[in-house]
């Protein structure tokens, strides 16, 4: 194995490989930054290029560059115009956009870039070193364990939402219910579709994201008007200082661990990782009340976690031939077209090429920082546009992005509907994040729970107690964790309130 690792180093250190990675990173960042254009869509358009070049050490690193760039690129519209392009950048909106409103968009973008690149680098090294030992663990996570983790995540998200727990729970349940609309995954019978073919497939994530996060922001901006004195969005702000990055290193490392753990398990994905990274950062902070109001550490927590997922998703793909999501399914195709068959024999039959690709992936992070750093001034300048221009452009992006995602006119209606819900929720001081996460996780929970029931058959008590101890343990631990976290959050809220009152007095 060591020989193929060394041979891989040899293979990876090629100028053309790095030129192609750079191209992939740049394309990925642009696509990620375009709302509605998801990383998997971008990659599927670019797959033919990767197989036409006919060299696995160019074609696949190119696609991996697109993947990395895309997940980071999604944070750009999230920070600048409160428009998460994909589920991965939901948690980035909270503090990222608050920083932009304070005129610190450049700081936020740079934090996002460095957090992404550092965590990507560390998780790639983890992938490279641990690919063989970790592969054995992956199969231990079946639908029952994933269902239990989903359940735990939902509870954590509800109790840690901003505002009272009851409001978080209401929004969470609403989101879960919205996820029920459409054909039920087991019998394909329509639910809440009112006999229309549009709702048969349920709601799509992109219009919900843009509707709930971006439209209320636009509405607010219009309501405030273009006051000459308060043209907050007229400057880009300072650069990120080294001590600020140092302060967030703990958060970045923590989120890297979370993201890596989630990435290894097929079927969890970036949205959960980012949310958990953010919540963990907030929970372990000495001043959690500043989160959501423009806290650099919040951006770091979310962005480090979602990029840390990227590398480890390759573990089940390369060692077992099992793609966990659309992106890894595309990579599976790309590997096969280069004559490499992901699966148990890949590392023994073409270990040098695989390690070459993995090493190129690790080194790509250096380019990642460089390219990202060069492009930030261009992106950041977006918000220097006058508000009277920025608002129409943002509205256009919201609608075009929604339509672009799958070319369905009905999604525009969905966008407007969820926009109204978002505006109402903001007026009533409800946090929309639990609703979105409820929507994303509720569907998954339903599906994996249904699979669990099918697996368990009639004797589910025996199933839960003898075959799936892990699942049972997580489910039993969930109320305890929820209660403890909820108390902690309540304490912080109380303290923050006292402090505010103290300031007034």
């Amino acid at each position, binding site marked *: 194995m060591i020989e193929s690792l060394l041979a891989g180093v040899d293979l990876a250190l090629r100028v053309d490989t790095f030129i192609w990675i750079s191209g992939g990173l740049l394309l990925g960042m642009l696509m990620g930054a375009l709302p509605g254009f998801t990383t998997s*869509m971008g990659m599927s358009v670019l797959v033919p290029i990767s*197989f036409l070049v006919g060299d696995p050490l160019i074609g696949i690193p190119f696609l991996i560059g697109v993947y990395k760039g895309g997940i980071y690129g999604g944070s750009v519209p999230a920070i600048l115009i409160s428009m998460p392009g994909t589920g991965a950048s939901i948690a980035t909106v909270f503090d990222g956009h608050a920083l932009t409103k304070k005129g610190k968009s450049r700081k936020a973008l740079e934090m996002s870039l460095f957090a992404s690149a550092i965590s990507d680098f560390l998780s790639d090294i983890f992938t490279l070193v641990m690919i063989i030992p970790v592969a054995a663990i992956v199969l231990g996570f079946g*639908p029952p364990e994933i269902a239990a983790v989903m359940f735990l995540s939902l509870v954590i998200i509800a109790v840690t939402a901003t505002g009272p727990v009851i409001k978080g729970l209401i929004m969470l349940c609403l989101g879960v219910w919205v996820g029920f609309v459409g*054909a039920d995954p087991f019998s*394909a019978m329509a639910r809440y579709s009112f006999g229309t073919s549009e709702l048969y497939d349920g709601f799509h994530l992109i219009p919900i994201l843009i509707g709930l996060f971006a439209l209320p922001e636009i509405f607010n901006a219009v309501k405030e008007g273009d006051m000459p004195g308060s043209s907050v969005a007229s400057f880009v702000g300072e650069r990120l200082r080294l001590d600020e990055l140092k302060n967030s290193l703990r958060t970045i490392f923590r989120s890297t661990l979370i993201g890596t753990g989630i990435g290894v398990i097929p079927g969890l994905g970036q949205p959960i990782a980012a949310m958990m990274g953010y919540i963990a950062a907030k929970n372990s902070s000495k001043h959690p009340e500043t989160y959501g109001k423009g806290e650099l550490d919040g951006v770091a927590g979310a962005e480090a976690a979602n990029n840390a997922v990227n590398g480890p998703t390759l573990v089940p793909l390369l060692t077992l031939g099992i793609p966990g999501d*659309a992106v890894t*399914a595309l990579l599976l195709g790309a590997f096969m077209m280069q004559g490499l068959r992901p699966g148990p*024999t890949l590392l023994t039959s073409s270990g040098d090429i695989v390690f070459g690709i993995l090493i190129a992936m690790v080194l790509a992070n250096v380019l990642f920082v460089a390219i990202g750093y060069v492009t930030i001034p261009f992106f950041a300048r977006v918000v220097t546009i006058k508000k009277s221009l920025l608002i129409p452009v943002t509205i256009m992006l919201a609608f075009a992005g929604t339509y672009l995602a799958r070319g*369905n006119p009905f999604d525009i209606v969905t966008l407007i509907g969820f926009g109204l819900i978002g505006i109402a929720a903001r007026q009533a001081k409800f946090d929309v994040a639990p609703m979105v996460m409820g929507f994303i996780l509720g569907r998954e929970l339903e599906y994996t729970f249904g699979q669990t029931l099918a697996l368990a058959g009639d004797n589910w008590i025996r199933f839960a107690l003898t075959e799936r101890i892990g699942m049972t343990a997580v489910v039993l631990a969930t109320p305890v964790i929820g209660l403890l976290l909820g108390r902690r959050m309540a304490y912080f809220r109380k303290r923050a309130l006292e402090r505010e009152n103290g300031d007034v007095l």
Partner: protein
Amino acid sequence: MKAWASKLAATIKAACPALLFTLVWFGLLASDSAAQYPDKPITLITPFAAGGSSDLTARVFTTYLSQYLGQPMLIKLVPGQAGQKGTLEATQATPDGYTLIFNDNFRDQLHQYTFLNDYYDTLEDLVAVARINYGQIAIIVRSDGLYQTWADLEADARARPGQVLFSHSGLWAALFVPAQQIMRALDLRFRMVPYRGGGPAKAALMAGDVSFSMAFPATIAADIEANTVRVLATAGTERTLEGVPSFVEIGLPPNAGYIHRIVLAPRGIPEDRLAVLRNAFADLQANEDYQAAMRQLGENTAYLDGAEYEADRIEHSLEFRDLVEAIAGTLRLQ
């Protein structure tokens, strides 16, 4: 200076671009009616999600097909509603040869009987341009599992009806349908566990969560080599793997367990345009690069001309209708 002259000059100057534009426009229109089809890019609707094996197959053949058509073929992903959304869009498209659809036989020949679909009838609304290729499903178990042969599995399933676990890739899809055909032909009952796609269904088998599954040979080549997976039977009348019985040998219908990938056009497409398309796909078969790319994907290139495939379409569709009618009542119980 004469005012009218300068006015005239100005008018002409202003009119020139408009005139030019009009001329070019008419020129384009004229060329449109006179030119050879196709004179603009062709849209290929694919009702699959990005990244699946069907998406990849489409990206391979569209890449090489353009040189035979003289125009690019652009893929438009329209996923959703188990493929019905894209299929619906294709059936409603103008039959001018500029909108085609890439589908599989389940979406083309079976789904209209299952989801209470009143919107279209693929057999009436679409006509086959070419069958790109086909795949034969294999019944797979873990090498270190209980079953050495299909007979072992069948005996166990008979002894414990509804207890033997089977992982499939989704309702009415490539793994689900053959399993239903097996249950019907051999009077067996498996416990069907759904997964999102063939990859997770295979993972469930490898993890030991289910007793058996199915897969297309390309996706398990590495596992067979590493001896982690054993194949118990493969679809068709003939044996495709040494020492492994075919579906017909174990008592299944000869058409069970096949996936066909087909390009179709809205019916009503002019005959000459349909001929152009069919010829392009026929010519594509001689392209070495296309053949090599498909081999890399582990896919065959068993091409069949659309005219020939039409008869198969109707025959298979009737078989599927039988199957759906026979088992529709039992589905709720699983």
